[in-house]
């Protein structure tokens, strides 16, 4: 077995680590006690979440009229949030699936948390269409099940129904992918748990994972096939979300570049959210030696690439609006009344946050700086929210009939539900960071010898990664027995 990696590649695991050190480092946040900062963050998130739930109950109890929607603008803040949250989810699958297919070792330190982020973000996204139904208890009507209304079925021609299938497949497949990867790590926590209750819980969560050679063989095959399935899946999800708009006849929505443009935007915003979360998490859980400057730089490179695609897509839209000569398109993009009209502030913040600020990442110093990456990632999160708001609210506010033109003003309920989902997201993420192994330790152990700083330095000096064999004195073994046998 070769553990060789070119010395020009920077190490992915810093410090003088053994396999056991990795176990210790990753188990520490779970076995230790939460500090004050964790509790503070948790209570703030919880308060935001409860406020959001209050707004949801108010909406459901009173009706959608409590939102800022009107007869023209039937989608605004809610669907913006939906698209924003789904987009954020995309980075997790990209990291765990696409980077697995490309054999990128740096994914191993961040895939667990990125996938957790995906799942929690898709939870938030799923809330919005359901609340928007107004009668969420009828949400099951979107399923193709026999019903008492005659043999009336769901409409498979509708992109909204495609969304139901895409998002539920995406959520459930991501969850299964994540959990399968978690089994060996839960087993690790289980086997070192001291408290009986903790042992019981992790025993249950690990599904009795024993780590047989055959299990690992299947595990690797399953991971590879799941990655192969999840890669087109993740591209399909935002493609289908973009079709919610692109298959309509509204100028500004009816655009063939929407699918690739939305997918690139999704990955762009998703990586920004991964940067935001990991920027905090690596400090709080002491994972600085696993989530390194190099990881941050690699993620920033993906951000600048996808951000570039998004910028080109914006330019293309404006160019096509002029080039086609369609008066509707022309009006939506190029007239004084539209993008630069009453929502000019949203449009200019989009340009600033999504196009201008990410260009700073061309500088290596900024790309490798934790604090600069964190600030830029927050800017992108905001910018990508405005992108969806621009697409949805500006287009709807200026329809084909000028007499119907209206503006959208969010109410406190719109804002409250959005804040609530941010709170809910962070509640889930904070609980996750305290109870789940935040780094895929079994996978990280496989790259320790090839990409660990300690082993890389040694192999540069010509020391083999395989230790010298010490022949065991067999006479002394008789008084020992397996640890589990003493139970």
């Amino acid at each position, binding site marked *: 077995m070769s553990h060789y990696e070119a010395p020009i590649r920077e190490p992915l695991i810093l410090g003088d680590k053994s396999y056991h050190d990795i176990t210790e480092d990753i188990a520490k946040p779970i076995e230790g006690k939460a500090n004050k900062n964790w509790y503070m963050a948790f209570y703030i998130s919880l308060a935001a979440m409860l406020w959001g739930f209050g707004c949801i109950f108010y909406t459901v109890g009173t009706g959608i009229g409590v939102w800022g929607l009107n007869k023209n603008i039937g989608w605004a803040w809610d669907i913006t949030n939906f698209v924003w949250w789904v987009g954020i989810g995309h980075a997790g699958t990209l990291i765990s699936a696409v980077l697995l297919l490309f054999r990128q070792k740096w994914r191993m330190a961040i895939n667990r948390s990125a996938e957790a982020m995906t799942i929690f973000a898709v939870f938030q996204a799923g809330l919005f269409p359901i609340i928007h139904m107004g009668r969420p208890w009828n949400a099951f009507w979107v399923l193709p099940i026999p019903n008492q209304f005659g043999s009336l079925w769901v409409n498979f021609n509708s992109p909204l129904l495609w969304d139901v299938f895409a998002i539920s497949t995406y959520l459930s497949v991501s969850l299964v992918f994540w959990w399968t990867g978690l089994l060996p790590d839960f087993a690790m926590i289980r086997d070192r748990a001291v408290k009986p209750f903790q042992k019981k819980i992790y025993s*249950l969560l690990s599904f009795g994972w*024993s780590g047989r050679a055959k*299990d690992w063989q299947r595990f690797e095959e399953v991971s590879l096939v799941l990655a192969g399935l999840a890669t087109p*899946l993740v591209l399909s999800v935002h493609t289908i979300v973009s079709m919610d708009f692109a298959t309509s006849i509204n100028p500004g929505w009816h655009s063939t570049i929407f699918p690739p443009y939305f997918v690139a935007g999704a990955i762009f915003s998703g990586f920004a959210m991964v940067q935001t979360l990991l920027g905090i998490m690596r400090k709080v859980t002491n994972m600085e030696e696993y989530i390194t400057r190099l990881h941050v730089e690699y993620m920033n490179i993906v951000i600048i690439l996808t951000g570039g695609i998004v910028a080109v897509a914006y330019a293309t839209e404006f160019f096509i609006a002029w080039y086609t000569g369609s008066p509707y398109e022309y009006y939506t993009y190029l007239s004084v009344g539209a993008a630069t009209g009453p929502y000019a502030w949203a449009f200019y913040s989009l340009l600033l946050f999504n196009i201008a600020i990410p260009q700073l990442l061309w500088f290596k110093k900024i790309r490798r700086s934790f604090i600069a990456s964190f600030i830029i990632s927050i800017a992108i999160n905001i910018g990508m929210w405005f992108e969806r708001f621009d697409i949805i609210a500006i287009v709807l506010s200026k329809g084909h009939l000028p007499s119907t033109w209206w503006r959208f003003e969010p109410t406190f309920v719109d804002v409250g539900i959005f804040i609530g989902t941010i709170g809910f997201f962070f509640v889930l993420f904070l609980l996750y960071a305290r109870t789940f192994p935040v780094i895929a330790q079994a996978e990280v*152990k*496989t790259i320790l*010898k090839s990409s660990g700083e300690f082993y890389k330095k040694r192999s540069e000096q010509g020391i083999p990664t395989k*230790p010298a064999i010490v022949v*065991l004195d067999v006479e002394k073994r008789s008084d020992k027995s397996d640890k589990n046998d003493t139970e």
Partner: protein
Amino acid sequence: MGSSKVIHAFYNDDEVLLDAVKTVKAAHHHIEEVFCPFPVHGLDKAMGLAPTRIAITAFMYGITGLSVAIWMTNYMMIQDWPQDIGGKPSFSWFENMPAFVPIMFELTVFFAAHLMVITFYMRSKIWPFRKAENPDPRTTDDHFLMEIPVHNNEEELTALLAKTGAVEINVVEKH
């Protein structure tokens, strides 16, 4: 009662383990099981394990999902309750097929992914409330455990394993 006895040889390095497995195989001993904290590349080949066929099942499940999607869209949109939506009547499945591509794709992935994972869990016997069977807690941390059945050759096996770099060798009764 030699047959119910097994030797548990512990290793603390993946490369040493892999060489040890090769040595034991070369000496024509049967390796019952190897428990690992992380996947060791080439271990399945060295142990002589057959390649897994789980990817093939995923393909078959995917085909099943695709068929379900085709049947479902045809039955619901064309046969049972055909509607004229947006001037696009539902006369035949093939004419309306482009609109069903997303559903066909999603159900293919849904069936392939979930049924493959369920197959994996069933075949490897992992599910909620199942008790773990790794003989030593260190095998999920940093130790590898090779289990070899003893057939009145305890001394010979122990000597062989000691030479391969095992850090601990125990002879235990298998329950």
